[in-house]
């Protein structure tokens, strides 16, 4: 009878276990407990502190490949803002963001009875990256002369109240790369002292935590976990909350694999005679 060798586990076994660990909690939710971390609480409190009727900006700088992490943040932020009667201006430095933002905002606008042009406006994409940010500091209508639907921005009622960042109570940047949160901090927050918050992919989040500590960001959502925490504070279960059970189970499984790998390695080293050469690795299975 063939023995199961822990030193040469076929990686497809691991893939299968990861698949089950993701699929099962999605089909049968477990509602594992989750704490709210300070950066997320700070973001929630910052939005709560904005007076009703104020204008906030949602700057979406992301693409479809990061939607699982970032779209729940957009939905939760828009829900939070609409619930507090805040008006929203959205912009984008990424060409593929505007339709994603539109997809998130349209159903929520219907749910809250908000009208395009008076309660929210989508200014769409503008090329230029950091240069566009500097232009917005001087004049947002001049930088975005037309909205996403090709309407002249000066003809939109909400935009008659917006000239530059002085008229924006808070900017929420949803970022998955460059240009993104770092550029918003460097070019906008540091120059115009805008109250800036950020939601980023988990991969991008660690370098931005010092910005929270220094006060340059008033809050930060890091990856699916940050989105789920924010959904919890806003009081609306969404895709992020639903995904957190799977995330926790997979993390536990990965930790188990890491521990198992190290235990097997130590056992193998202890069993090896002193001075013996390390046995050659088994050939890897494609891929």
């Amino acid at each position: 009878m063939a023995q199961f060798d822990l030193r040469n586990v076929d990686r497809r076994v691991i893939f299968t276990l990861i698949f089950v660990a993701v699929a099962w909690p999605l089909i049968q939710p477990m509602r594992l407990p989750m704490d709210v971390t300070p950066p997320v609480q700070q973001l929630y409190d910052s939005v709560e502190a904005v007076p009703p009727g104020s204008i906030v900006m949602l700057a979406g700088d992301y693409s479809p490949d990061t939607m699982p992490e970032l779209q729940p943040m957009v939905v939760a932020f828009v829900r939070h803002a609409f619930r507090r009667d805040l008006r929203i201006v959205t912009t984008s430095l990424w060409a593929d963001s505007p339709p994603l933002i539109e997809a998130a905002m349209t159903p929520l606008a219907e749910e809250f009875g908000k009208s395009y042009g008076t309660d929210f406006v989508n200014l769409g994409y503008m090329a230029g990256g950091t240069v566009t940010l500097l232009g917005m500091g001087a004049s947002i209508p001049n930088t975005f002369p037309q909205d996403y639907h090709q309407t002249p921005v000066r003809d939109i009622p909400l935009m008659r109240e917006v000239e530059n960042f002085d008229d924006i109570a808070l900017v929420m940047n949803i970022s998955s790369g460059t240009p993104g949160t770092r550029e918003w901090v460097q070019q906008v927050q540091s120059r115009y002292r805008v109250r800036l918050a950020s939601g980023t992919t988990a991969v991008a989040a660690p370098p931005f935590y010092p910005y929270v500590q220094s006060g340059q960001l008033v809050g930060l959502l890091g990856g699916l976990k940050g989105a789920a925490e924010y959904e919890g504070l806003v009081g609306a279960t969404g895709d992020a909350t639903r995904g957190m059970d799977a995330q926790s189970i997979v993390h536990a499984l990965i930790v188990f694999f890491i521990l198992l790998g190290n235990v097997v390695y130590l056992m193998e080293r202890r069993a090896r005679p002193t001075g013996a050469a390390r046995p050659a690795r088994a050939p890897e299975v494609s891929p």
Partner: protein
Amino acid sequence: MTWLHDFVLGAPGTTPAVVWGYWVAAVLTLAVYSFLYKDNPLYRFAESVFVGVGAAYWLALLYHNTLVPKLFVPLFPPEGEPMLWYRIFPGILAVFMLLRFFPKLSWLSRWSLGFIVGMYAGVNTTGFAQGDFVAQLHATMTTPLTEGGGLSIALNVAAILGVIATLVYFFFSKEHRGALGGIARVGICFLMVAFGASFGYTVMGRVSLLIGRMTFLLRDWLHLMH
């Protein structure tokens, strides 16, 4: 039977175009994941489709979002609107970039590159100085060591020690021996913690993407999530 109907034809109220979209996306997702078993023609087909569609999508997106509104419309405006003649200069620089394909004229592309490098260096240098260097230095220097509870003070002290020890690790003008070597070793520990946190977040991000795809397959396509 209801499940089978939803799976094949979509949930009530779903248009055929959306159902087709779900099926195409699901088949392509499974084709890509089939690589985890082993390389196969289905995976290569999905990969080629992605590359081709992605290139075409970006070409169309950039043409309609950048070239048309930023160059063509300002140079050939509708009746009654002024012509922004100065937009011809970035247009010329854009043409220069394409001259890289012609060896005799490729030197002209350096003008465009020089413009881009110079402009971005200027903008980003001031931005980095204001947004990162000065602001982070200021925040570190003014970290309160007496405010808040015991844990808060301990974390602030750790942050300051971490900055100093890590800077010492990157100080290469003196050999890392004795006290300097000890502090540099502490700096390495802080760096390892930072790398570990970064790796942990990366794992979380990759798992999140898998969750996103699985949510699509199980909810939108298979209707197994409620």
